[in-house]
C-alpha cells in the first residue's frame, strides 16, 4: 500500500504540489533526519580518535595507506625521479686489513673506486649509505679515515656534495662525528624511525637537534646542534612552512623529542620505488669497461647495499622488505619534489566532520529542494543513490586525487562506512524514539485529548 497520499498525481504522471501542512511536516522530518545524521557523524568522528588504536582499524588504515601510496606511483614525477641508487652488493665484505679479527665491512678501497666512478659522472650529490660509526674506545680505523679524506678532497675538488652515513656517532660532539672537524659537513644520520601504527615504515627523520648541554665537561660547549638526515642533506631543499591556519589542520612534519634529542619527521612517498629499483646501477657495471654513459649526471646518487644487507624495512607497496638505501632514496625524492601531508588530530576530526557535513548537507539540500514535489519515501529510496555518489566522490577526492592533494588521509573509507551504516542507525534511533513516545503516551495520556 502506497503511503504519502497527500501527493496527488495527474493522469500524465505529473506531481501536484502538496498542501502547506504536508510540506511543513515533510520538511520538519528532513530537518530531523539531517540533524540525526550530523549527530551520528559527530559522534563517529570523535569516536574515531579513540578506536584507532584497535587492530582492525589500524589494518583498514594500513590498507588505505598502501592504496594511497600505490596511487602515488601513478604520478609523472615518480617515473621521472632524479634519484639513483648504485648497488654495492657485489662487493664482498671483508675483514679490515689492519684487524683480521674485526667484523667484515665493505672494503674501503673498493668503495673508493665506486665513489670515483660515480663522481666522474658529475652527479648533483652523493650519499654513501654505509655506516661510518666507529668505536670511540679504540679509535677510528685507518682505512675509514683514508676513505673520508678521499671523500672530503673529492667534494672540494669536484664541487660535489658528498654525505656519509652515521648513527650512534651522533652521541659524540659534532667535530668527532666522522673523526675530524673538517668532515662535520659530510655527516648525515641514517636513523629510520621505528614504525608506530602501521607496522610498516612510513616516516623518515629530516633533521635531528642534539642537545649537548647535558654532557659533562668540554662537550657541553657545543650546546644545541642540528644534523640533517641523509635524505634531507641530499635533497637540500627547504619547504615553506604551512600557514598557521592550515597548519592547525594539516602538517608536513611532525616533531618528536626526548631528553637528548629532537627530530622532525616527514612521510615518505614510495611512489618512485619501482623506478628506483629499475634504474639501480650495480657497482660491477659501473666499474666495468662497459661504459654506463652518463646515467648519474646531475642526479642524486645513493651508494649502498640493495641486496644481502641487514638493514631491511617493510614499506608500503612492496610485498618484501626493501634495503635501507631505497628508503633513503624515496625519502630524498619526497623532499626533492613535493612533500606529503597528513592531518593533525583536530584536522582528522574536522576532516571526518567535513566529509559528513558535505554528504548530509548535500542530501539535505536536495531533499529540501525536492520536498515540494517528492514524498519522503521517494526521497529515502533515492538516498542510497545519493550516498553512493557521495562515496564515489569521496574516493575520488581522497584517493584518486592524492597525487594532486598530497594529503595522506586514511579515514575516508571509515567515513564511507559511517555513511553506509548511518541509515540503519538513524532508523533504529527513530524507531526507538517512536516506541518510547508510544510507551510514554500509554502511561501518561495527555490531558485534553480524548
Amino acid at each position, binding site marked *: 500500500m502506497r503511503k504519502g497520499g497527500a501527493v496527488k498525481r495527474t493522469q500524465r504522471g505529473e506531481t501536484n504540489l502538496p498542501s502547506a501542512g504536508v510540506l511543513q511536516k515533510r520538511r520538519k522530518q528532513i530537518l530531523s533526519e539531517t540533524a540525526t545524521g550530523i549527530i551520528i557523524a559527530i559522534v563517529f568522528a570523535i569516536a574515531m580518535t579513540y578506536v584507532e588504536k584497535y587492530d582492525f582499524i589500524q589494518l583498514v588504515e594500513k590498507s588505505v595507506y598502501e592504496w594511497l601510496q600505490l596511487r602515488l606511483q601513478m604520478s609523472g614525477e615518480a617515473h621521472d625521479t632524479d634519484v639513483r641508487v648504485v648497488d654495492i652488493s657485489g662487493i664482498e665484505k671483508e675483514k*679490515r686489513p689492519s*684487524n683480521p679479527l674485526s667484523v667484515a665491512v665493505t672494503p674501503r678501497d673498493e668503495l673508493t673506486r665506486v665513489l670515483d666512478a660515480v663522481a666522474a659522472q658529475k652527479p648533483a650529490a652523493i650519499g654513501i649509505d654505509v655506516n661510518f660509526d666507529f668505536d*670511540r674506545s679504540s679509535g677510528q680505523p685507518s682505512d675509514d679515515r683514508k676513505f673520508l679524506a678521499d671523500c672530503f678532497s673529492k667534494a672540494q675538488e669536484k664541487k660535489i656534495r658528498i654525505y656519509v652515513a652515521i648513527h650512534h656517532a651522533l652521541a659524540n660532539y659534532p667535530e668527532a662525528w666522522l673523526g675530524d672537524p673538517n668532515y662535520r659537513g659530510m655527516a648525515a644520520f641514517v636513523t629510520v624511525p621505528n614504525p608506530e601504527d602501521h607496522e610498516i615504515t612510513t616516516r623518515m627523520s629530516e633533521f635531528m637537534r642534539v642537545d649537548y648541554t647535558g654532557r659533562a665537561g668540554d662537550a657541553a660547549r657545543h650546546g644545541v646542534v642540528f644534523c640533517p638526515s641523509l635524505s634531507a642533506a641530499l635533497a637540500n631543499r627547504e619547504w615553506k612552512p604551512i600557514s598557521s591556519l592550515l597548519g592547525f589542520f594539516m602538517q608536513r612534519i611532525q616533531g618528536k623529542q626526548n631528553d637528548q634529542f629532537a627530530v622532525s619527521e616527514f612521510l615518505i612517498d614510495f611512489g618512485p620505488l619501482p623506478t628506483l629499483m629499475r634504474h639501480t646501477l650495480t657497482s660491477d657495471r659501473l666499474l666495468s669497461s662497459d661504459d654506463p654513459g652518463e646515467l648519474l649526471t646531475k642526479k642524486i646518487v645513493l651508494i649502498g647495499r640493495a641486496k644481502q644487507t641487514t*638493514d631491511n624495512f617493510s614499506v608500503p607497496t612492496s610485498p618484501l622488505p626493501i634495503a635501507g638505501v631505497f628508503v633513503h632514496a624515496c625519502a630524498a625524492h619526497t623532499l626533492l619534489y613535493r612533500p606529503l601531508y597528513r592531518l593533525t588530530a583536530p584536522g582528522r576530526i574536522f576532516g571526518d566532520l567535513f566529509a559528513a557535513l558535505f554528504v548530509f548537507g548535500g542530501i539535505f539540500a536536495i531533499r529540501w529542494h525536492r520536498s515540494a514535489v517528492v514524498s519522503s519515501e521517494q526521497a529515502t529510496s533515492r538516498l542510497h543513490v545519493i550516498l553512493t555518489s557521495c562515496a564515489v566522490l569521496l574516493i575520488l577526492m581522497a584517493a584518486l586525487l592524492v597525487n594532486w592533494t598530497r594529503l595522506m588521509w586514511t579515514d575516508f573509507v571509515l567515513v564511507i562506512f559511517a555513511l553506509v551504516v548511518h541509515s540503519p542507525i538513524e532508523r533504529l534511533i527513530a524507531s526507538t524514539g517512536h516506541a518510547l513516545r508510544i510507551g510514554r503516551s500509554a502511561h501518561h495520556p495527555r490531558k485534553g485529548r480524548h
Partner: protein
Amino acid sequence: MNLTFCRPIILGMLLVRGLTSANASDSPAGVIEYVHPPVFWSKNASSKTQTPLDPDQDQGRRIYSGEVVRCGRGGSVRLFVLAVGEKTLTDRNPPYEIPLLPDIGATSAGTKPDDWQIKFMKALDSYGEAGATLGGQSAVYSPPDNGAVEVSGLVIRWVPSPGYVKVQIQTLDGQDLWVADGVDGSVGQLDSEKVRHALRTYQAQDPRGSLVLSLTGLKGNESRVMFSLLSPASEKTLAAELAYWDTQAKGLMRHVGRAYAFSHYFLFVEAAAEYDAALLEAPRSRDLLEKAVQANHKTGNFVRENSLKEILTREEQPIRP
C-alpha cells in the same frame, strides 16, 4: 692465580690481540703484574684523582696509554708494557705515564663513552634503527665468524629472533652442503646430526676447507659467518694440550689454560665457555670478565658480551672514575 706463570699467556694474548685487532672494544697497553702497596693509579697526568691499587683485585689489571702509575712510600709495582717490556717501579721513581701502543692501525686515541653518550645511544636505538650497512654483528655466534669448529661438537647457535629462518651451509664457491628452511628462529640453536654428517663428509674431501653459514630471516635479513673445520690432526694436538691443562692445573688456572688452547685453534666458542666457567669460581674478577668479554666478542655473541660489559662496568666504577 700465579700471574708470573700466566704472564706469557696473558701477554701473548694481549700482543696477538693488540697487533691484530685495532678496533676491538679495548686496546690495553699493558698489564699490572704485581702490586706492593701503596701504589696509585690515575687516568692521566693532569688528573688530580689518584686511586690506590689493590694487590689482589688489581693483579692482572690492564693499563692504557696515558694512564699514570705512581708508588707511595715503601710501595712497588711491576708492569708489563707492550711498547717497552717489563717495567718495575718503586717509590724512588717519578710517576710513570704508560706510553702509546705501537702503531696497530688505529689513528686516533680511544676514549670510553660517557654516561650521556650511553644514554643517547640507547634513546636513539629505541627511536629507530640505522638504515645503512655496517660491518655487522652477525646473529650467528656458533660457529664464530672466522673461527673454527670441531665437527663432533658442532651446535649452530644464533641470537633468538621471532619467526622462521633458513639455515644454509655452503662452500666458498657457493656449493650447498646443507640447507634447512622453516627453522624456528626463536629457539636460537640447531643441534643436528645431519649437519655434522654433512660436514664430516665434506671434511673427508677437504680437511681445512672454509665454509659459509648463512641464516636468513623473514625480513630477508641475512647473517653470515665464515668458519673452518678443525682438521683431525689439529684435533689430536688440541686434545693433548687440553689434557696437559687438565692434569697440570686446577681451578681458575685450568680454565685459563684451556681457554688459551682453544683460542689458539680459533675455537672461540669453547674459549668463551671456559672463561664463563672460570667466572663461576671468581665472578668479580675483572681480568676474567675482560677476557670473557673479548672471547664473546670474537664469537659474535654480543648479547653475552654486553651483559658481561655491564657487570664489568659495575665492578670497575669504584676504581676507574
